[in-house]
């Protein structure tokens, strides 16, 4: 099997039209760091888009960055750092837990968008999908199309940018994309608050979010993890609350919240190091565990965790004020229990992020969709890619 290496969307059109004519399937690949996210795509050849790289136009004072989708994240981050800006959704580096690509590989911005990956600031600043302003792509029909634009405020036509985020390359091959950027916070510090239980931690965080002190991120570490990360307060759970902004503001808000919650401060350097590890799920990375991602209403987090039999012996960290749970362990029953818990709650999703054995062969990595929603997904997929040329079955069977 040969890789088809292409350098622009014209060539993407040729390759996809060839595949349409031959009724064959393609797997899209740039950095290759996220290949093990989701199902294995069914394909006859790899469409290598790693040459789609480079920044096209960056106007920091307009908060707009236009670049090619295959641009490595380290290049993106370096350009942003020079202008003291950020991607506010705080994209994680999952290559560290997935062990894919070159060691320490950053992945590409296109991969981040295709998987809609967001970090701790997602709680207050939104997800990758909130920052993609527009794109150009070739559909699975071999047609070049664009959507959105290069300006921040735009409601012209359907917002296909949202659809491309998290579509795992199943709808189109993107090249030029435009992102909204934001100024980097001048400083960030954190507050540590000990809690007796996960329920207390979640409601303690909720009470902090009911103040005007503008917390920006909130994670919860069980005591074993807190101890490994050097932030053990001698309590079963430690809430970590991050405050960002100008120095005077952060100091003032931290002071108020310390008085309110009786916690302990974490200085800027240690705060940055800890949040990077939380962002990249590092506390769960080293052990040979399957890792599940659960997104639920924050107040449902204790119920999701309670659904896991203590005998399953899981490790977890919570982010997004409890609305994001990373759950690691070796038992094949974790996924079944999580899916049952979510079915009981009636909302949320559980996705298998990493398996060390063959877990994904026995359970769907993506949360299964209900009948009519799955049918709609299939029709949406078919509207972009009727023959299933692009990343076929990467997300769900039969689409």
């Amino acid at each position, binding site marked *: 099997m040969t890789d088809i290496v292409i350098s622009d969307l014209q060539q993407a059109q040729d390759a996809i039209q060839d595949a349409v004519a031959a009724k064959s399937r393609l797997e899209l690949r740039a950095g290759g760091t996220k290949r093990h996210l989701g199902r294995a795509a069914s394909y006859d050849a790899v469409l290598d888009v790693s040459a789609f790289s480079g920044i096209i136009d960056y106007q920091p004072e307009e908060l707009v960055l236009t670049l090619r989708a295959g641009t490595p994240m380290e290049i993106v981050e370096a350009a942003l750092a020079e202008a003291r800006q950020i991607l506010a959704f705080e994209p994680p580096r999952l290559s560290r837990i997935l062990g894919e690509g070159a060691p320490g590989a950053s992945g590409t911005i296109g991969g981040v968008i295709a998987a809609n990956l967001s970090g701790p600031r997602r709680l207050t600043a939104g997800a990758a999908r909130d920052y993609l302003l527009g794109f150009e792509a070739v559909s699975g029909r071999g047609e070049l199309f664009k959507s959105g634009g290069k300006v921040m405020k735009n409601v012209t036509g359907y917002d296909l940018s949202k659809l491309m985020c998290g579509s795992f390359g199943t709808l189109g091959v993107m090249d030029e994309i435009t992102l909204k950027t934001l100024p980097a916070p001048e400083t960030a510090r954190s507050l540590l608050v000990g809690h007796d239980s996960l329920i207390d931690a979640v409601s303690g965080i909720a009470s902090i979010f009911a103040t005007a002190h503008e917390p920006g991120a909130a994670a919860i570490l069980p005591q074993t993890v807190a101890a490994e990360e050097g932030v053990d307060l001698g309590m079963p759970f430690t809430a970590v609350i991050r405050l960002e902004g100008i120095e005077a503001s952060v100091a003032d808000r931290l002071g108020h919240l310390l008085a309110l919650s009786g916690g302990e401060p974490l200085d800027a350097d240690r705060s940055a190091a800890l949040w990077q590890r939380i962002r990249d799920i590092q506390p769960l990375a080293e052990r040979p565990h399957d890792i599940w991602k659960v*997104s639920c209403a924050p107040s449902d987090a204790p119920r999701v965790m309670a659904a896991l039999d203590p005998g399953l012996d899981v490790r977890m960290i919570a982010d997004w004020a409890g609305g994001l749970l990373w759950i690691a362990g070796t038992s094949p029953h974790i996924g079944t229990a999580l899916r049952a818990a979510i079915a009981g709650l009636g*909302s949320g999703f559980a996705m298998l992020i990493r398996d060390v054995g063959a877990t994904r062969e026995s359970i769907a990595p993506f949360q299964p969709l209900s009948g009519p929603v799955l049918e709609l997904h299939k029709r949406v997929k078919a509207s972009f890619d009727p023959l299933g040329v692009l990343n076929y079955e990467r997300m769900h069977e039969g689409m």
Partner: protein
Amino acid sequence: MNRRDDICGALRRMLPDGCVVDSTESMKAFDSDGLSAYRQVPLAVVLPETVEQIAAVMKYCHEQGVKVVPRGAGTSLSGGALPLADAVLLGLGKFNRILEVDYANRCVVAQPGVTNLAITHAVQADGFYYAPDPSSQIACSVGGNVAENSGGVHCLKYGLTTNNLLGVEIVTIEGEILRFGGKHLDSGDYDLLGVMTGSEGLLGVVSEVTLRILQKPATARALLVGFEDTGDAGKAVGDVIAAGIIPAGMEMMDGLAINAAEDFANAGYPREAAALLIIELDGPEVEVDALIERVEAIVRKAGATSVRVSQSEEERNLFWAGRKSAFPAVGRISPDYLCMDGTIPRRRLPDMMRRMNSLSQQYGLRVANVFHAGDGNLHPLILFDANQPGELERAEEFGADILRSCVEMGGVLTGEHGVGVEKRDLMNIQFTEDDLKQQQRLKCAFDPGHLLNPGKVFPHLHRCAELGRLHVHKGKLPHPDLPRF
């Protein structure tokens, strides 16, 4: 019995008394939306009371091939809720209840007919608010906000509806009740919540929303800054952002708008200024005080000719009073006006002002500008007199030229008002035929019969079967019968 009687009879049988309005006189109340130059009495108006009733109406219309136009509060500025003579108008006005206020998860679950401002009213006693604040927020409904992806003056910092919406329940044209999103943040499937937002009622009827609420900032202060030159004002906006500051709002007005607003509101605006900026900062008090100083230094350096900083909440509200009354104020100096809505990259502002001046001379019509300067969203108000033959058409042509210029300068046709019927025929300025076809294919996935809000957004309707056909442009493959890989 004719077909209309059949349809009205069937609708009456499936809905409680008073939920079907079909006399021409009563339907006049529904014949227009915020784009009042266009009027049309619908086939019938239905005002269902439950989601099951919406589903029953949709199912019936789908089976019978009857078109449906959804309507929230009817405040669309682009004719998004304009009725069709052969379509049922589905009014969501009776869905006016807030279902749940959930502080633990910082969200509100509401029916689609609840007004935007009512969400904030429901939570403000506890220090929370709902961020998107379109200027029609007293009247516009949250369901309509989803359909139009409404913005407001604070979107630079707080985003549009799409960034503040956690979940929806929708009813499809087939009468299926589906949920996308919820109180959780990420969902692992296609972002149909995102696609529904701003889809202008073409993909489904919103029957419930889950909105993110935020803690109200501790304080807010504003600066009122005058400039002799709009270019300097534009540069000042860029300088503030380049300094790493994202104000809660940055509004610009030009000379005509400044004077009209000052006549109306006596806000103390500098009448001699060519451009006025209102820059508002919100957040913790120490932060706002520090940033106000930084912003003041930046705007002075950029050439501000007058700077006032609000010293009290009354003064801040006074600064806004002029801006918020800009539309009625312009209404006083002209019998009629058209409110346009395009976005440009902000650095093109001086070019755009020059272009508008020359168009103004060419068409012989005045234009006043209010502008969400932070995000490049323009609202030129074209002044005309509908009683003068040909002036409405001239004003519309002028408006279309402005929007063409927006696209030429790298911007877009609409920043927050939507395409609707107003900008439908301009879509091919911004999009290629293939761009529009792909959008319409998505429409086909939701509504293959083109029954939901037809005639809006797209200039040409293609049948879904035609859109679905695959064309291999390259035509001849060298060996079409051989496997290619």
